């Protein structure tokens, strides 16, 4: 076996994935070839980085809890639309299926509806506020129109006062005095 044939086989050899028919000539080559042997040693060294794992601690009662939820109809799918949750036939057919998971789903549903309602109220109030608050140039235009309107009304009232005064000089005291802005 040549080095260019041996090197690609080294990782599979160290993973125990080669048949004896493939592994035997590679072993012979590694005995004879120092550079390939060093390469194989380096691959073995690299594997040592993956050897440090701590024991897995499974929470007590996990399996029983999961089995209970599964038979209550919890499918483990993303819980965005709990009302559309698929309930397997085997779970649905069982008596007393409404348990912990059903209560959780109901609570989640209520919370989601509440959150959605709150969002709608906020969005509506922001939208209404936006409608009632004209921006930049339209603000001054509206104010201008309002100012012109008030001016005309005042002038009209002045005219009415003067007409009233002309008709009945004794009633001058009743003239409506308007403070101009």
């Amino acid at each position, binding site marked *: 076996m040549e080095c260019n044939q041996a090197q690609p086989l080294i*990782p599979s050899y160290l993973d125990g994935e080669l048949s004896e028919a493939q592994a035997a000539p590679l072993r012979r080559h590694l005995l004879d070839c120092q550079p390939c042997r060093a390469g194989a040693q380096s691959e*073995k*060294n690299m594997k*040592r*980085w993956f050897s*440090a794992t701590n024991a897995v601690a499974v929470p007590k009662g996990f399996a029983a809890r999961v089995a209970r939820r599964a*038979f209550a109809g919890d499918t*483990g799918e993303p819980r965005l639309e709990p009302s559309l949750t698929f309930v397997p036939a085997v779970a649905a057919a069982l008596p007393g299926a409404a348990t912990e998971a059903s209560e959780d789903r109901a609570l989640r549903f209520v919370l989601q509806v509440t959150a959605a309602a709150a969002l709608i109220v906020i969005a509506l109030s922001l939208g209404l506020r936006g409608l009632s608050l004209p921006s930049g140039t339209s603000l001054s235009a509206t104010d201008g129109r309002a100012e012109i309107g008030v001016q005309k009304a005042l002038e009209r009232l002045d005219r009415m006062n003067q007409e009233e005064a002309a008709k009945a000089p004794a009633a001058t005291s009743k003239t409506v005095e308007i403070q101009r802005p």
Partner: protein
Amino acid sequence: MEAAQVEDESLVRETLAGSQASFQLLVERYQERIFSLARHYTRNAVDVEDLVQDTFLKAFSRLDTFQGQSSFFTWLYRIAVNTILDGIKRRGRSPVNIVEDPEAVAAPGSTRVSGPSAGMERDEIARITHAVLGELPEIFRAVLVMREFEDLSYQQIADVLGISIGTVESRLFRARARFKDKLLQRHPEFGEE
């Protein structure tokens, strides 16, 4: 067919017939391995438990689709990998997204790294390894975790990921090369001549 597989299939049948106890036995049989897998993707214990729970709940809801063509473990493991990756993405905690075609990456060089120093504590080794793994594209991290931590065979990895054994080999080759490069970027002291 192995005895464990026969027993798994029997438990599946009993579960489908309505036996909660049989499903609980299936969970007990594989919970440690699925917890172990999830732990390589997130260090948050609550997230790990949620992901493992979702894996088993999804498995239960799809149990009638299990055909017995692959082993129950491989079938469950595939659900676990997808659930964990989806869950991590949904939580926005995936440190690395695939931004390249891993199969198109140029062949790695002959980078060599030493193993952990003799005096290093297990926790320190695990911390470095997980930090480096966290920098790898998901597709590389997945094969390394399955092979190096979970000791899955090439065939099992191929079945879980739905790829050929040849692709598993080439992906592992590149994943290891990338792992070495990232390790040396963080810790040049572990380089070898």
